[in-house]
């Protein structure tokens, strides 16, 4: 009796669940779970793309990356710098703009659209446009700097010393989604709280510090996680700015680019690239863990 009831329930309630989630699960298994397991297996081999003979090398790839590959270290450090610096800039810009767009000004919808536009333009196109803007000789940025009397304007992406900074500046315009997340959180705050604060004589800054920030802190935490991961796995902008190879002089060689170059440029070391991917995953996992730990100190648990 119980068995037939279960079957009936299964047929009625879980049929469509299985059909629709089954397709998604199949896709997830094929395109995520399988590659993850395959990458782990590859990381213990000396597999190259074209060579069908594969040898098991144990932890050799991991040890080589950690002890013997200067570009692994350089790209890892550059990725961390990029993720941190662009993350801070994106976070500050998106919060600032969200606060501004939350105010009661005319044509606010137009402003929201304008600020969101950079996000919907593909990074490849953004990179190409900014390359022209930041061209030291003919770009608009240096021309403006010269109008303001700057005698020796920066070489931006041409010089190895400033190329990464240029990329960080450009990437800070990718605040679209984060800004929307903050905006949604800001719009959920009861205006009465600000009215009470104003009546109590609180300044704008104190209202922001003691009402706005605590109430949007869960979203702040969410954005920090997103920004950290986005920054660490940044690829397309670095690919365009660095001609796909960290140009100039490996200064824009972010870790995903180096991993890509290792796997898909000669001599096509797939096994080694897979090991690097796992080391990278562990690093992201570690940083996310740190973020979670740090969140205890700034995320307000009860925001109702």
């Amino acid at each position: 009796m119980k068995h037939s009831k279960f079957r009936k329930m299964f047929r009625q309630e879980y049929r469509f669940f299985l059909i629709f989630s089954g397709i998604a699960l199949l896709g997830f298994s094929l395109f995520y779970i399988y590659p993850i397991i395959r990458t782990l297996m590859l990381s213990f081999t000396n597999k190259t793309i074209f060579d069908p003979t594969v040898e098991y090398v144990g932890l050799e790839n991991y040890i080589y990356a950690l002890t013997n590959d200067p570009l692994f270290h350089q790209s890892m450090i550059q990725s961390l710098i990029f993720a941190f610096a662009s993350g801070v800039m994106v976070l500050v810009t998106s919060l600032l703009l969200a606060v501004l767009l939350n105010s009661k000004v005319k044509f606010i919808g137009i402003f929201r659209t304008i600020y969101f536009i950079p996000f919907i333009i593909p990074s490849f196109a953004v990179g190409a446009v900014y390359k022209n803007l930041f061209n030291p000789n003919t770009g608009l940025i240096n021309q403006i700097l010269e109008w303001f009397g700057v005698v020796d304007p920066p070489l931006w992406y041409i010089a190895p010393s400033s190329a990464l900074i240029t990329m960080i500046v450009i990437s800070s315009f990718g605040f679209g989604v984060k800004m929307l997340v903050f905006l949604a959180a800001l719009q959920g705050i009861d205006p009465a709280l600000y009215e009470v604060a104003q009546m109590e004589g609180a300044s704008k800054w104190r209202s922001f510090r003691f009402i706005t920030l605590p109430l949007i802190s869960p979203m702040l935490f969410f954005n920090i996680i997103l920004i950290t991961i986005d920054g660490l796995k940044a690829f397309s902008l670095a690919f365009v700015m660095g001609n796909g190879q960290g140009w100039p002089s490996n200064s824009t060689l972010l870790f995903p680019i180096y991993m890509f170059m290792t796997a898909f440029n000669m001599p096509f070391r797939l096994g080694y690239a897979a090991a690097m991917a796992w080391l990278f995953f562990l690093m992201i996992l570690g940083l996310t863990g740190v973020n979670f730990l740090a969140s205890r100190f700034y995320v307000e648990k009860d925001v109702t």
Partner: protein
Amino acid sequence: MMKIYRWMMICFMMLMIVGLAACKTTSGDVLKIALDIEDEGRYDTLFQRFFDETGIRIEATFGIDPSKCIGTSCEPDIMKTSTVVIDSMQGTLLDLTDFIAQDDDVDPSHYVDALMEALTIDGKIYALPTSINTSLLYYNKRLFDESAQQIRDALQLSLEESVYPSSTWTYDDYVLAGVALSKFTVLPNMTRSYTQFGAETQLIWWGEWLVYLQQMGGSFYQANSQNRICALDTAIALEATTFYVKKSMGNASEKFAPNAIEAASAFSFLNGNVAMIFGGHMGDWYSYDVLGLDWDIQVLPVPANQPNAVGGEISADAFGISIRSNKRAQAFQFLKMWTGVAGATEMVKYGKIGALKNMQTIIHDLPIEEQPRININALFQAIDRATTLPREKDFPKVMREMVMTELYKLMFTGRGAETNIQLVLNRIKHNVDQYYIGLYKNN
């Protein structure tokens, strides 16, 4: 309801099966070949001819990276490779030596020797070459004509002599003509603002710098080091690199190529504001024509004290048979046509020059409208002098990540720039040597 549901499931399963079957390797007399995206539609006549002769249909994919098809049902029977990547691809390609030995129509000695050597590993031939790429001196005839008087003055030419580059040019002629072709104005702050350059600078690709090094008598690896010890600690390496740097960074009487900053500002042969390319790539011929450039080629200039210097780099696209193909004999039949006279004749129409030694005759026999309208004799002179890249599978990686990245620092002024060429060469040597030590542990 249940019936409809069951029928929907059956239809879905059938669709899946049909879809999967479509991906499976085609059966019957069909051969698959992976070609570049720009080749789409170009060789239909040749494929039809092969079908008429053998009854085997050629199914080509265009722009799909064969490396991504390996191990899948879409894997081609005939695979594109090249003299540069053959070492990496060796494991996926069939040894053609026996096929060639048993076939009277195919003779490896009919192909350019340097290319066949590059495609032969441990005495086994893994691919046959198709279109060649070799370093040449490209020049824009319009820019030469516009600066004819300046070039005549610089090279002390009579009115009867051509101002275009000649096969007897030395580096000195190249520099003098390059400077004469460079146009600039002096700004109030005494800096030069160029509007035209005599030659391009290759900052990412090593094809220019390495040729200077080799033509001056140097080499990248030490002899007898199994290509694992860098040889950039020599006086020749310093001289070659100084020449490479000076042409972009020198004073007004030395500079005739853009530095890194100027190169980012649309100065290029393709844009029609740079008069020459030292090295170049034959794959760009088609683009030059499409853009309507009035261009021609000449053999590379040589150092004055090295009249018999080696030429530039030579490489070739090549095709082999996938080790996983179950139609090896049929694939070899097509490979013969594809890499032979028939294939070479078709490819010439698209600016690709075959790797056959008698290519000059083949081109000469073509109808005049199908012949390349350039100095084709110079190409064959260049091929005779050319040399292949070092046989070392990490060579492109080393050049890309360790050599050009350091040389770049010499090609601009400002923060992060280098001026001490010897110091840069020492650093490259140190990094390259350490790389090979790490890779091979002194073995």
